[in-house]
């Protein structure tokens, strides 16, 4: 594979062509915050946390969807990027009803961890307090829209790994919602195989197994990555 030279955070690197900035950073131990990225499935640049500055480009670009190119000079930890990340995490919390203390994912939640990482000590935006459905119709799992951050990992993992494409996205703006089939209750879905991959892909407490309570949640998104890699090896 052809190699190219890039500079990330004042560090000169020789990297393979065809990779995304995020992949290159992770391979070289450069930390980039993400919520919607899950290794192995396609990237959509939805969460806007992996934004980086590239010299000569007049806007921030998402590292997960931007391919690395020769002689790029990239900065991942400028004050501007940190400010944007903090704003983004605040907006996540303000948009829906995230109450960590009673959430099943408390202590195991990527959104909670993001709050700590971006040093979010308070939220400067008014909470929207939207009225959100809790879909308990599936016999084993719950979908709580209050805790959904629209990362769409569930949508992609269901379509790309399970091949069921039960999940989809409806509406726009802050009315956007994850839907099952053509907006039917999850329990009535004709496509869901109840495989549970969306449960593991979900970074928050939005999708969780009915059988567990706070403190017992174990999500293993890396299991999905492993599954994809093993499938590739078989091919």
């Amino acid at each position, binding site marked *: 594979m052809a190699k190219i030279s890039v500079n990330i955070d004042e560090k000169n690197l020789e990297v393979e062509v065809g990779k995304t900035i995020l992949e290159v950073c992770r391979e070289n131990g450069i930390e980039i915050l993400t919520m919607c990225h899950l290794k192995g499935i396609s990237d959509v640049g939805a969460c806007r946390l992996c934004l980086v500055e590239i010299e000569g480009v007049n806007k921030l670009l998402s590292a997960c969807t931007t391919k690395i190119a020769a002689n790029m000079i990239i900065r991942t930890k400028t004050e501007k990027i940190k400010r944007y990340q903090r704003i983004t995490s605040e907006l996540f919390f303000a948009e829906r009803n995230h109450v960590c*203390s*009673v959430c*099943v994912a*408390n202590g195991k939640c990527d959104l909670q961890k993001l709050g700590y990482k971006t040093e979010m000590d308070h939220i400067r935006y008014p909470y929207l307090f939207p009225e959100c459905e*809790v879909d*308990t*119709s599936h*016999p084993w799992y*719950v979908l709580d829209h209050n805790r959904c951050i629209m990362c769409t990992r569930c949508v992609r993992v269901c379509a790309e790994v399970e091949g069921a494409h039960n999940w989809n996205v409806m509406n726009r703006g802050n009315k956007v919602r994850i839907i099952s089939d053509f907006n039917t209750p999850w*329990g009535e879905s004709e496509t869901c195989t109840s495989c549970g991959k969306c449960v593991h892909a979900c970074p928050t407490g939005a999708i969780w197994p*009915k*059988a*567990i*309570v*706070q*403190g*017992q949640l174990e999500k293993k998104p890396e299991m999905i990555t492993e599954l994809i890699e093993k499938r590739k090896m078989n091919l």
Partner: protein
Amino acid sequence: MDSSTKRKIVISPVTRIEGHAKITLHLDANGNVDDAFFHVNEFRGFEKFCEGRMYTEMPIITPRICGICPVSHSIASVKACEMIQGIQPTYTGTLLRRLIQLGQNFSSHALSFFHLSSPDFLLGYDSDPSTRNILGIADKYPDIALRGIRLRKLGQEISERITGKKIHIAGIAPGGMGFPLSAENRKALLAWIPEAMETVQIGIGIIKKFHEENEAMVKSFATSPTLYMGTVGPDGELELYDGNLRFIDADGNILQDQLDPARYLEFIAERSVNWSYLKYPYYKPYGFDRGFYRVGPLARLNIATKMKTPKAQKEFENFKAINNGKPVHGTFYYHYARLIEAMFCVEEAERLLNDPEITSHNIQAHGRWNYAEGIGCTEAPRGTLFHHYKTDDTGKLVAVNLLIATGQNNPSMNRSVLEVAKQYVKGNDIKEGMLNRVESAIRCYDPCLSCSTHAVGAMPMIVEVIDIAGNVVKRIERG
């Protein structure tokens, strides 16, 4: 009487209790108390906003009602969940729940007695209000203050060593417990027991001495007879975690015995009043006017036939002797009853910690939604607690009813305030000490109103004597 001569005294907020409340005293033309109202001026709304949630979330949501008795809420809630699933918790799961509940019970009783009430006994009702608190006790009786704080700490440490959380417990799950107790943590908890027992005995010494020195006051302090309700075991023994309900009348006659808590609605009704957010529950067969009943430590000892542990049994016999085996009505005896119960909790905690099964990993049975309705009941530190859930056929809650101990004591608290106010508040010269006695009638019940607010010394109390035209005739302020 001409209404223009009536006056009103407002005590707001009531201090050294858990939560916010105020008292209004209405005086007649001669300065005597005509009527009294105990207002709970907070609104929480848990019953409403829990609707729409999954029933299995309730053992985590409901402990947030209270920072003092979160375990009781979690246990009542999980029992309701188990009724919905139709399953029983494992033996070890039950042991661990019982242990955590005992810890919470004596921790709460330590808070009530040492932190909130002991300043009245050790420093005096008429002492300087600015130091009549736990800091004043720490100054004059540092050993007692420290012991009280450490007893509370042990109760919370039981929860922490099992679930990792001191206050708002996690891990009480339908079918048992989410976390086991390690051998190391069991050893560490057992090491606390002797000190805890000593502290409870010191507390009993303090209250007995106060009883001896203030016999007339203790015997005459809000002594109106009421009915009593609580949970008993199969032989009528005091039971906190599980059991059936017993109602007795003011003479000690058993009205109902071994009543399945799931039938509570057949025996308890509630009525709203327009001056308080707290409802007025009553014993249904006797009606609203005659059906006032009390719950909590005094009620539990009044209804119980015996105690399960030896030291507590001995003290229980002394308690029963106060009224020759009949129910003890004096509200002041709540403190004594609370300490006897704390003694039972420490003894019982030691017994459970010595059970070889307590460190077993067989902690949780598993079930799923089977029935649309669940009722859970347990004894919280302040009395019997009911959680009642109704769900749709996917497990989503459609109705929640929480019947809290303090609510059940509400009618009696109101009456005790009136009695004490009639006895101590007189004329135009209202002294702070008089009002402290009125407040202490409330404090006897250790009410948990929002269960979240605690202030030491900094909480102001304002008493205003207002004439009918709205003019402030007299104002006393402290804080």
